[in-house]
């Protein structure tokens, strides 16, 4: 499944980034890469974007961007 399908409170292991270039690079530079565990902290008041916690950092991203992050639910 992909990250945008996870709900607040869920956590998962990043399996793959299915996007390259600008967005792919940005995700990696922000510390999102395969092997890491992330927790979905919350959705914004209007549902989008979402906030995730990875390794002690809090990162917000749009669902439209999260769908390129393949995760395995834990």
């Amino acid at each position, binding site marked *: 499944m992909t990250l945008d399908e996870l709900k607040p409170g869920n956590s998962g292991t990043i399996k793959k980034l299915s996007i390259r270039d600008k967005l792919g*690079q940005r995700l990696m530079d922000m*510390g999102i*890469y395969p092997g890491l565990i992330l927790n979905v902290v919350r959705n914004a008041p209007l549902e989008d974007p979402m906030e995730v916690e990875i390794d002690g*950092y809090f990162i917000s991203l*749009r669902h439209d961007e999260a769908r390129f992050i393949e995760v395995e639910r834990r």
Partner: protein
Amino acid sequence: MKDRLLVALAGQPNCGKSTVFNALTGAKQHVANYPGVTVDKMSGWYKYGETRVDVVDLPGTYSLTFYSPEERVSRDFILNDKPDVVVNVMDASNIKRCLYLTFQVMEMENPMILNLNMMDVAQNRGVTIDIEKLTRILGVPVVATSMKQGLGKTELFDAITDTGRKKSFHARFKVDYGPMEAFINNICEMIRQDTGDLEAYPARWLAIKLMEGDEEIRKLIREKGVQGTKILDRVDGLKNQFEAEYDQNTALAVAQARYAAADKVAAGCLTLPAEKKKPMSDRIDAVVCHKFMGPIVLLAVIWLLYYLSIVQGYNLTNYTWPLLAKLRGVVAAMVPDPGFIDVPLISAFALWLMDSVNALLNYIPIFFILFGLIAVMEDSGYMPRMAFIMDRLFSRYGLHGQSTLPMVLGGIYVGGCAVPGVMSCKGIPDERSRLATILIIPMLNCLAKVPLYVLLINIYFAAHKGLAMFYISTISLLMVLPVSKFLTTTVLKDKPISPFVMEMPPYHLPTFRGVVGRALERVWMFIKKITSIVVALAVVIFILLQFPGISPQRKIDFQAQRDKAITQFRNSIAHTPYAEVLAGAKLMEMVLYWESYKDKKMLAKGPEATDALNAKYRKINPQFFSIAQPGKDKVARKVNKSFKKLFKTRKGLLREMRKERINTSFLGKMGRALEPVTQFAGFNWRVNVALLSAFAAKESAVATLGALYEQNDDGGDGSLESRMAKSEDGFTPLHALALMMFMVLYPPCLATSIAVKLQSGSVKWMLFGMFYPMVLGISAATLIFTGGTLLGLNGLQAMGVFYAMALGTTIATGFIKTKSEFDPVRQAIA
């Protein structure tokens, strides 16, 4: 020994880099732009011993790729300006993550120092760092500091000077790219063998960048290498080979290798606390970003921002305005005095300039508070939260979560200012949204548009003031959103976008020094950049308003009227002792005396101040004073009466002349020339002139209308409302509504246009930003006026219909889905 050093500060966002920059350079800073982009270049200097050290604060970035202008200017600076030392500022409590950038700086093979800043925060979190071991592993000098407390400053100064003076420098540590190493070495070899100009660049860094697929470096190889294209062909082959062999994207492999290396280094010299507490920031966010509480907190913050800056700042101008008025007084005293009816051109010009500048300077208290509060929001970490809450709404219209602040500043409800609004667009990472935000902000309701609204609502919507004010306050938002959607799907369609992905940094308590410093610096920037241009353009408008001037024939008429009035006055006082007092040129002296006395008396508050003023003026000229304040003296009272009449005649003549000057001026001619077009919007030429003059500053619209609707006779009350209502018999609420709507969409004022040019980095966008609102404004006004007239609607009905249309358009455009920006198919091919 080198007595000049160049230092660059590099670091990720939120690592305390600006604190380090401030600690190093103190107040000796200035801001410029990197060539070709709208990224601020902060630089400063200090003197340490005999050495002068210039410091450039590179933008805070997570990485050094070619994708964002901030990252590009950072690495270009290191590459081309070859600073003597790069100081890599790191958040000591987050070393592991910071190393990701550090490795990239190291690969550029420039002499460098690691500055572990925020040691106090690390200690509080229970993180201990073996600095010696870190130094040994990386082979780079490491200096630990807590710059907020000023700890470690001397050590950093020493380290910079030491490293800067060394002839050669090599960081020992190299990231191990695993299976990719062979590929990198292969490319390195090709680059080293090339006989072109590539040897000036670190070969390994180029090779890694090529494996990552960096477009800028590919361009560099093509341009500087003799065998450029051949190398690139080989690189493409190697990249494909790697991706096929290891089933992994090269850019991802590079990033992962860096993170792995960071893990390894961190594991070697860090001791982390055993159990992780739930961070304080997350607990705050549970409220601040909460489904219901979040928007409430946001509204409260916006309200507070308005209240403190606009309301309280406006109150402050009550104290600063007299200072500016005094300044104007100084200028007025320096230029030649006006004659009875002819004002010397030089005096009129000097005062016009002064008024134009003062109109801007008057906003300084507001701006100071505003900029200070923005700095608080930036430093505390609330900005990303604001973007987080608003992004969904704004992104539907092609804007960005970070458009929130600029829009609040520009006046999302009544009472903003487009200048700081446009200036604060800098933070929006996505170029398309940034340009859209810059272009729509002038349509929001800035403070200067309000006087015209109030004027028109008081005349034409007197029975429904509240409703009309609500309409005008909210309609701008309903115009802005569809327009932004339209712009981003048409003219801005091909502008690059950026991912939203953003860190929600921990909250910080802002420091007083940081906030006040930034507020002062931004106010100063504002004065420097805006004022000079406003002066230049005020000159142009002055010429347009003053020339060609009154015809000689009419001038003679006016002079005859003047002479008649003066003769009449002299006859009426001929047999009093005051005839002598006011003989010849003394009459004009009395006119000026009376004028200044009246002005001062209006300002004097309370009986004591009035007494003091009276005493002062009695001392200046006791005889003049007895005319000004005749008391019970019968003769003096009669003279006073006659004099007042003369004074009124003079005022009337001056007004009449001003009106005629505007009528015949270039601007007046333009107003007339536009009438054939604007008549469908219900604007006559007077309104056109007022609107044209509003370009200098929107407040001018009401002032010019005031000049055009002068009262002609002595009777009637003086308010502009009644004058305008009287002189424009045919003017209906529908006219007024069309005019207000045009004002909503009015092109940006001068100062804002300049800000648009600065922030968009191009004159083209500035001109576009002036042109399209004009077309839009005329169209909306025509729709209201002509449409309303055809349908037989009154002002209020037309208002309702137009509002419903705008609301409908806003909702409808919000539902139009734009295709996802990140198209996986397109991306995969690329």
